């Protein structure tokens, strides 16, 4: 690559986990590439080896405090395969779905209101002292309260389905350990219409923002890509189950209704020496071209329709923007995410009115197997859980592909696009840093860095010249 300078941004704030960004420059100060280093070591695949399989859905959800339900359910689905439960009882499946929609709802709301809205409401260049959740509470108190109450509702849904709001035990191999009592149902039903109303409002904010800023966003970390998600048999969006569909950037179906039990036939993972996170790719397309995006944007792009009325109308408006072709704007993730929020609210209402949730038949079992795969559409994208279990009921192998891993290449690309547009020379501006984070945050939310959420941006930036010398260093 010749002589390069390296610009390092760390830590990335308002993003889950500990991230660090390196922007590599050539001698002329032009960006050659950008890398998002994920330097956390997860280790779950190793330390659940030897543990009994029924423990796994409860253990692995500790991967995350924001979307633990996704891991809980993906693992439970894999364990359904292990215990031979090929078709759950209606009560079990619908309870799990309700849990999952509650989870999607609260996670998306957290992502949008708590973590992203400061960027959208105040602008990328606003003073960090204002551009945070406290700033939102001060200037838009009604909106902030909505965000809190919407997240609370999702958490209440999780509590009545999983036992508690974070890290519950509801899904067990072959089913669920409780149904929904009439009292629990009524407790949620009384608020559901308000939730749907607020969801409409959140969707409007995201949509209007995208449409109004289309020119800027069209060039903001945007790039063509394939999109992958689960899809229901009839082509509807399904966040809980389905076959794998992948479309290319033009919308052509490359993979469709693929049975995910055989995902290793089509997907492989590459390891790179500068990140602990693997790089999944479609085998047939190779490591260079086989990457794809997952998450709300991909799901709206891959779905033929959404099976709830208001979200379907919203999906059609979304698709109209690109003439029916896939939308490849990184920042359109937020709009897609809010379509899913409305969809989740509609789905929760539909489920709450379903008498199957009061059924007594909770668990089924069949012929024991030694290997199982569970996939689910987690808030941030397709989540893969794969286990092998020995005759003594102990896990011998575990492989997890989390959505952020699938979005590894896309996030790197988004950062690179932003860096190329907004960085020149050696000066690291606040505007550049903000935009790098905004691009990452479109994919991955979470809030590990509470410090920034409260106003101070703890960034350290180093400019390293082609001789490896630090020529500039800036901390805020």
């Amino acid at each position, binding site marked *: 690559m010749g002589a390069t300078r390296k610009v390092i941004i760390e830590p990335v704030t308002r993003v889950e986990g500990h991230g660090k960004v390196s922007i590599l420059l050539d001698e002329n100060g032009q960006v050659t590439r950008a890398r998002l280093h994920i330097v956390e070591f997860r280790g779950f695949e190793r330390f659940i080896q030897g543990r009994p399989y029924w423990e796994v859905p409860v253990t692995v959800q*500790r991967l995350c405090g924001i979307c633990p339900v996704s891991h809980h359910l993906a693992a439970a689905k894999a364990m359904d395969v292990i215990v031979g439960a090929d078709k759950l009882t209606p009560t079990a499946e619908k309870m799990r779905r309700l849990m999952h929609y509650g989870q999607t709802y609260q996670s998306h709301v957290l992502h949008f209101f708590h973590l992203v809205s400061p960027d959208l409401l105040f602008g990328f260049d606003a003073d960090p002292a204002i551009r945070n959740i406290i700033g939102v509470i001060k200037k838009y108190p009604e909106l902030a309260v909505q965000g809190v109450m919407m997240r609370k509702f999702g958490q209440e849904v999780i509590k009545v389905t999983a036992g508690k709001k974070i890290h519950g035990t509801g899904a*067990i191999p072959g089913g669920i*350990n409780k149904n929904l009592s009439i009292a629990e149902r009524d407790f949620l039903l009384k608020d559901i219409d308000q939730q749907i109303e607020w969801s409409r409002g959140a969707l409007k904010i995201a949509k209007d923002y995208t449409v109004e800023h289309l020119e800027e966003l069209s060039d903001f970390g945007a790039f063509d890509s394939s999109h992958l998600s689960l899809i229901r048999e009839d082509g509807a969006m399904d966040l809980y189950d389905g076959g794998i569909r992948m479309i290319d950037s033009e919308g052509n179906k490359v993979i469709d209704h693929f049975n995910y039990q055989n995902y290793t036939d089509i997907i492989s993972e590459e390891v790179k020496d500068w990140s602990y996170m693997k790089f999944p790719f479609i085998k047939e397309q190779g490591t260079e071209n086989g990457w794809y995006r997952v998450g709300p944007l991909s799901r709206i792009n891959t779905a033929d329709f959404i099976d709830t009325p208001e979200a379907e109308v919203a999906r059609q408006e979304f698709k109209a923007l690109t003439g029916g072709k896939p939308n490849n704007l990184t920042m359109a993730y937020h709009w897609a995410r809010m379509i899913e929020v409305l969809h989740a609210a509609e789905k929760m209402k539909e489920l709450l009115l379903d008498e199957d949730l009061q059924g007594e038949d909770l668990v089924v079992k069949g012929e024991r197997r030694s290997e199982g795969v569970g996939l689910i559409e987690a808030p941030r994208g397709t989540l893969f859980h794969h286990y092998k279990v020995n005759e*003594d*009921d102990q896990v011998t192998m575990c492989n997890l592909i989390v959505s952020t891993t699938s979005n590894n290449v896309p996030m790197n690309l988004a950062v690179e696009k932003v860096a190329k547009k907004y960085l020149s020379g050696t000066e690291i501006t606040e505007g550049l840093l903000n935009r790098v984070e905004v691009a990452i945050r479109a994919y991955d939310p979470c809030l590990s860095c509470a410090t920034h959420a409260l106003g101070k941006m703890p960034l350290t930036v180093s400019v390293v010249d082609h001789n490896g010398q630090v020529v500039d260093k800036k901390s805020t």
Partner: protein
Amino acid sequence: MSDAIKFTIDGVEIEAIPGQTIMEAADEAGIYIPRLCAHKDLLPFGSCRVCTVMVNDRPQAACTQPVSPGMSVESETEELRQIRTNLVEMLFVEGNHYCPFCEKSGNCELQALGYRLGMLAPKYPYMFNKHDVDASHPDIYIDHNRCILCARCVRSSKELDGKNVFQFVGRGIHKKVAFNSDTDLAATNVSVTDKAIENCPVGAILKKRTAYAVPIGKRTYDSQPIGSDIEARKAAAK
């Protein structure tokens, strides 16, 4: 009760039958004394010392000390609560007790006692000792990480099941429950219906494929602290 023995626990006069232990008499009177190794169906053992009370100003194990006329027993004092908490904390740091995902959570006597005693985080350093699991039996799962060496399995197998499946081996920090076989648990005559399996107070001996079947909120200690069943007797007698 002409030959009843009268004594006091924390100043409350109790009547007991000669030969009863302090714990037995207290239980009948609806007074809960914390315990881990003691079990109502097993002979007094006195190993965990969590039931330590002051008898005429001397520490004694309530589960083994017989009652005698006029004895003055102190149980609910701050000093004893601290001693009991220390003992429970030591058990927590010696084993690998991960309550957040342990399937015994909510039904575990060690966890419940920690809550009852107001234990927050152990003040002793975790030892992170390495322990084995034995999953060889088709219906029973053994996790030595969670064993507190209370000997309930050892005693239940002998006293109640008429078997001799479990036994202690090793000394000090190396002490562990071993099985009466040359290889593993599957090679013993243990059965999943044995009292030895049922009487484990923690998540060390488990029935396979029953985990998390009871939802959070309906587990033994979700809504009331350990000992509430004993204390309910006192309320019922009033």
